[in-house]
């Protein structure tokens, strides 16, 4: 456990020594604030119910920033050769992957928590349904886990950060769009595709419902992403 924290700590610190983390957090908070302002603060007749459309947009925003957040995690260490030194220390492969995953997710969670200031502003002038709001945020954090795990996987595939970002973007967009395909295929296949879709699984959180099925969906996506990343890190050849 201490190895995981050491690695996560180094990774998190490294985010903040480059402008990347600041840029991502500012971008995320800026767009979120803009959507909040346009969707709620400037809408006199806004209903708490409209919140779910907003939080769905925030999930998509998270999906957009994930590839940039995760692209360097493994790929950069492969490219610069630091992975070799790291892996000859007494640390397990999975400790490295989990540590890096936690760093990226920690940064994401930090940005998400900061954005909670927006519903607090709403509270001044109106009434916020906090149960629904917090469920939405819980879903956001869960979805972020799955996104970042897939991003780590993409980063573990290559030593080129740009390639890692593109692979991550394709993977994430696939899981976002796969639900739409369900309308153009047979009923049974469509159901399967719907269950695979991030959007379909997220919808309930936005309504304030915690569906075990969706929780399991995000957790299994996280697990698969991390499992495949560990397998890739075990493969030592410079890709």
């Amino acid at each position, binding site marked *: 456990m201490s190895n995981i924290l050491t690695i996560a700590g180094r990774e998190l610190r490294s985010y903040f020594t480059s402008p990347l983390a600041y840029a991502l957090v500012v971008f995320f908070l800026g767009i979120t604030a803009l959507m909040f302002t346009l969707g709620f603060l400037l809408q006199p007749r806004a209903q708490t119910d409209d919140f779910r459309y907003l939080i769905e947009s925030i999930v998509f925003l998270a999906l957009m920033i994930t590839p940039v957040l995760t692209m360097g995690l493994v790929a950069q260490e492969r490219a610069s050769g630091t992975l070799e030194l790291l892996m000859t220390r*007494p640390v397990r492969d999975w400790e490295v992957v989990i540590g890096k995953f936690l760093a990226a997710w920690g940064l994401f969670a930090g940005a998400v928590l900061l954005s909670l200031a927006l519903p607090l502003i709403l509270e001044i002038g109106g009434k916020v349904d906090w149960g629904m709001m917090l469920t939405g945020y819980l879903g956001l954090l869960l979805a972020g886990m799955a996104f970042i795990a897939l991003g780590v996987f993409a980063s573990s595939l290559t030593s080129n950060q740009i390639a890692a970002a593109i692979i991550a973007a394709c993977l994430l967009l696939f899981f976002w769009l796969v639900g739409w395909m369900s309308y153009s295929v047979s009923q049974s296949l469509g159901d399967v595709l719907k269950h695979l879709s991030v959007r379909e699984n997220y919808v309930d959180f936005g309504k304030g419902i915690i569906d075990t099925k969706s929780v399991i969906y995000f957790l299994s996506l996280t697990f698969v992403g991390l499992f495949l990343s560990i397998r890739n890190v075990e493969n*030592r050849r410079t890709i």
Partner: protein
Amino acid sequence: MIEAHGLTKYYGLHLAITDVSFHIKEGEIVAFLGPNAAGKTTTMRILTGYMPPTFGTARVAGFDLADHSLEARRNIGYMPETTSLYTDMRVTQYLRFCGRLRHMGKAQLAERMEYVVERCGLSERANSIIATLSLGFRQRVGLAQAMLHDPPVLILDEPTVGLDPKQIIEVRNLIKGLAGDHTVMLSTHILPEAQMTCERVIIINRGQIVAEGSPEALTAQIREAETLLITVRDDNDIVARQLKDIPQVIGVRRAEQPGGYYVDTAVGTDLRAEIAEFIVGKGWGLLELQPVELSLEDVFLELTTEEKGVA
């Protein structure tokens, strides 16, 4: 302390090393010598647990690298060929990170950090960001992180590459100072380095071990003749022919300088007096006569070069 048995590594279809076996005893300093791309780094990456061999087994400090990789790695300090460090960290930050991954206690870590920073000549740059350091200083940070946890086994891949001559001497002395308490395996393609710092040399070429022993033993092993270098003032066509007629002279070759010849005589003979007398008697004007010692370089070239004279 380090045992390799039949290590073989394929990268896809490319065979990097074949049947590499050797044994390094506790407290020994051994040079792993070979031209570029001979398989030095591959062997070291296997011994440090970075990647598994395709065939063969290796043990470090008594731990099998396949079954007890973590325990073996705990006993190793490794300095890779390209000292790749986290360039966004400060030297002390980086060393602290390394110490934490080695589960060193706070007090122990502080004490060891002070020691390695001083020994590796990093005192004045200890708070610098690694990205701002020159290659020579980065090499020293690489060495410092390898020594940080005081490991019984040190594996150093080309530790003096990129250093200036003064630093090279410092690093070599540092490595020599580790003898006894530490087992050191260092790779190099620089012969004098092997000769100066190490008690034993393992020569690898094209992925195979071609020779092993002390520098002296290796030169003796390869020696096929005693060689004398002579220089005459009045060089002419018959010198070589007449020298060859002296009993026990095996061959005569031209040396680089004008009037110079290498005279090979049978192993164990000393014909200096006879040859001097012969040349003086002919009146060719003897300018120089000296025995030629075979250097490790000759051994190395002999073992690793197919076409002589190319290197």
